[in-house]
C-alpha cells in the first residue's frame, strides 16, 4: 500500500453566526492517494467547499474556526505548521481551481503575468523563464496561439478559456494535488466537456492528484475513481465510484441517484424526489441527520447518530441498517434478487479480512 498524499482526520470547521456557532464540517475524514481523482459530491450547504478551503487554511478565520482534526499532507499536519510554511505549499504542492474564473483572475494584469507570478512566488527563476513557463502551460491546456494570447487580459478570454487559464496557473508549479471546486458549474456543456478533458490531461501530465468537488453526479461518474457523498456537514457514504453508483448503502445517496432525470434512458414514469429540504445547519436534526427526509427512518435513527460503517474495501456508509438484508437502493433491488444479499455481505467481509491479514503479513 502506498502512503496517502493527503489524509484528513476528523475535521471540524464551524462558523460564528447570529444564531450561534454552526458546524459546517462535522467530523470529516478521508484520504487522497497520489495521482487519483477523488470526488466530493453534495448539495449546496453540505460542507464540501468548506472542507476544501479548510485543507488549505483558506476559510476566513474568524468567522470560521477549524475546531479540531488533522490535515496530514505527506505526513505533516498542515494545522501545526506556520503560515509561512503553509504559503510554500499553497500554489506549489497543492493548488486550487475555483468555480468562477472571472472573480479568480485579476482584471488589470495579463494572463501571462498572473501565471508567471505563481511561478516566481515559489521558484527562483527569471522573468523570462517564468514567462516561457506560462506560455508552455497555456499550450498544455489547449489555448490556441499561446504566444500571442499570453499577453491578453482576462476580459479578452471567453469563460471556457478563463477556466483553462486557471488550470494552467494551477499546474504551473507541478503540484501533487489540485483542488477543483465546481470547476465547470458556470460553463455550458460543450465547454464543460473541453475543460474536464483539459483538467484530466493536466493532472495526468503533472501526475497530480485531484479533489473534484461538484454537485453533478455525471461529472463524478466520468472522472473520479473514488467518491465521498456529503450531507449536512458529514460524509454519509464513501467508496469507489462503482460502490457509490451501483452498490450504495445509504438512503440519501441512493435517493440522490434516483431523483435525477436521465439523459441516457427513456422516461421511466415520474421522478422520485427526496422529500423535504436539506436541514438548517444552525440546528441540525438529532440522530441521523437525514432521518427527517428518510422514507425508512425508525426510532433508532431519531435517537442515535449512525457511524460510518465499514463495508469492505474502501466502502463506508453512515446508516444503522447497512447490514439489513435487502438494504439497497430500489433500482438495485429490481436488478439483483435480495436473496443474494447475505452472500454478498459475507464475501465482502471475507475479502476485508483477507486484505487485513495480507497487510499484516508484510509490514
Amino acid at each position, binding site marked *: 500500500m502506498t502512503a496517502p498524499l493527503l489524509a484528513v482526520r476528523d475535521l471540524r470547521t464551524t462558523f460564528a453566526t447570529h444564531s450561534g456557532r454552526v458546524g459546517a464540517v462535522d467530523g470529516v475524514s478521508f484520504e487522497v492517494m497520489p495521482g487519483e481523482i477523488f470526488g466530493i459530491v453534495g*448539495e*449546496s450547504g453540505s460542507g464540501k467547499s468548506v472542507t476544501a478551503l479548510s485543507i488549505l487554511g483558506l476559510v476566513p478565520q474568524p468567522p470560521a474556526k477549524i475546531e479540531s482534526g488533522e490535515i496530514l499532507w505527506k505526513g505533516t499536519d498542515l494545522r501545526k505548521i506556520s503560515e509561512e510554511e503553509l504559503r510554500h505549499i499553497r500554489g506549489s504542492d497543492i493548488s486550487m481551481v475555483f468555480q468562477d474564473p472571472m472573480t479568480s483572475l485579476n482584471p488589470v494584469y495579463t494572463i501571462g503575468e498572473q501565471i508567471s507570478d505563481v511561478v516566481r512566488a515559489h521558484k527562483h527563476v527569471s522573468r523570462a523563464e517564468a514567462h516561457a513557463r506560462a506560455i508552455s502551460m497555456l499550450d498544455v491546456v489547449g489555448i490556441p496561439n499561446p504566444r500571442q494570447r499570453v499577453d491578453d487580459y482576462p476580459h479578452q478570454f*471567453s469563460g*471556457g*478559456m478563463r477556466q483553462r487559464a486557471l488550470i494552467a496557473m494551477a499546474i504551473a508549479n507541478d503540484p501533487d494535488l489540485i483542488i477543483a471546486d465546481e470547476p465547470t458549474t458556470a460553463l*455550458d*456543456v*460543450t*465547454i*464543460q*466537456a*473541453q475543460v*474536464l*478533458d483539459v483538467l484530466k490531461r493536466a493532472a495526468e501530465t503533472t501526475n497530480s492528484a485531484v479533489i473534484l468537488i461538484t*454537485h*453533478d*453526479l*455525471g*461529472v*463524478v*461518474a*466520468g472522472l473520479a475513481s473514488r467518491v465521498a457523498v456529503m450531507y449536512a456537514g458529514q460524509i454519509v457514504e464513501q467508496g469507489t*465510484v*462503482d460502490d457509490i*453508483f*451501483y452498490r450504495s448503502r445509504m438512503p440519501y445517496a441512493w*435517493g*440522490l*441517484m434516483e*431523483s*435525477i*432525470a*436521465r*439523459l*441516457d434512458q*427513456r*422516461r421511466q414514469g*415520474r*421522478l*422520485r*424526489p*427526496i*422529500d423535504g*429540504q*436539506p436541514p438548517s445547519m444552525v440546528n441540525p436534526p438529532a440522530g441521523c441527520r437525514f432521518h427527517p427526509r428518510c422514507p425508512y427512518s425508525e426510532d433508532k435513527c431519531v435517537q442515535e447518530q449512525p457511524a460510518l460503517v465499514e463495508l469492505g474495501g474502501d466502502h463506508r456508509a453512515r446508516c444503522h441498517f447497512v447490514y439489513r438484508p435487502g438494504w439497497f437502493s430500489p433500482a438495485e433491488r429490481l436488478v439483483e434478487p435480495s436473496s443474494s444479499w447475505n452472500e454478498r455481505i459475507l464475501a465482502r467481509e471475507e475479502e476485508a479480512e483477507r486484505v487485513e491479514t495480507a497487510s499484516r503479513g508484510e509490514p
Partner: protein
Amino acid sequence: MSIAAAPEQAADDLPGDGPGERLLVVRNLTKHFPITKGALLRRRVGDIHAVDDLSFTVQRGETFGLVGESGCGKSTTARLILKLLTATSGEVEFDGRSIFPLGASETRRLRAEMQVVFQDPFASLNPRHTVRHIVAEPMIVQGKPRKEARARVEELLLLCGLSREHASRYPHEFSGGQRQRIGVARALALSPKLVILDEPVSALDVSIQAQIVNLLEDLQAQLGLTYVFIAHDLSVVRHISDKVGVMYLGELVEVTDRDRLYEQPKHPYTVALLSAVPVPDPHKERLRQRIILTGDVPSPADPPPACRFHTRCWKAQDVCRTIKPPLEQKTPGHWAACHFPETTAGPLNS
C-alpha cells in the same frame, strides 16, 4: 428547397406539428438588437442576431422543450412570445390569433392566458410583499375583486404543495424550492392556457429539482396546461418534454419528438451536445467516446455565414460555408437544418 416558402404552404408542416391541435404558432420570428456607438448620436454599427427566422408550433396540452447553450436565444424567444420584447419581424399566433398587432387592452387580456415562471426564485418575487400579495397581484391587475382574489390565493397555494399559513409570510422565509412553488402559483392565478417555464429548476438543488418537475407535471395533467420548457439541462428536458427544439446561435437546428431526438439525433450540434453531457453511470462513462467541439460559440453580432455551426462542425464541407441548410423534414416528424444529417444511432446508444 427555398427558405421563403409561402405561409399558406407551410401551414401543415411547421416543426413541432403533430396530430394534435396547435395552440402556439411561431413563424419566421426574428429579433435583432442594435449595437450602437457614441453616447449622443448612438449610430447603429451592427446587430446582435439574438433570434433569427424561428418557426415552430406547440400543440395543445403538450410540453415543448427548448434547449441550447447560453446566448443561443432561448430566453429572447420566450420574451418575444410573451410580447415582453418587440420582434424585429415575424409572427406569433396564440390560440388562432396573431398577437403582435393586438392593442394594449387586448394584450392585457391575452397575458391572462399565457404566463411565465422565471429561473431565479430569489429575484422574481418582491421581497417586500407577502405571498398573498404576490400571488393575488395578477388577478387584481386583471380586475378581479380583492376578496375573490384572496380566496383563490389559498386554493393556489394548496395546489402547488404549500399551505394556507404560508400566505402571510414573506419570500425570504422560504427555501428555493418553495419560492419556485410560489412562482408557479402566481403563474397559475389567472388559469392560463400556456405557461412558459424559463429554466424553472436550474437554480435548485438536485433533490429539490425532482419535486418541482413532478409538481409541474401534475399541474399539467390536472389543468390541461401547455408548456414551453426552456432549459440548458438536457436530462430534465428529456424527462418532461413531448417535443424538443435545439437552438444554436439564434436558430433552431433540430426539432422532433423527445426520444427520437435523444436516440437518433440528426444535426451534428445535437450529437455533440448529447455526447458532451456526462451521465451518472460510471460503466457507461468509461466506454463513452466524446465529441469535443473545438473553440467557443461564435459571437451573435457576427454569426458565420450559411450554416452557423460550420466553424465548429467536424462534417463541414464547402457547401456548408456557402448555402444555408433549411430546417426541413428529414424523416416524417423530424426536422433538421443540415446538409449532411446523421443517419446512425446517436452517442447515447453506442
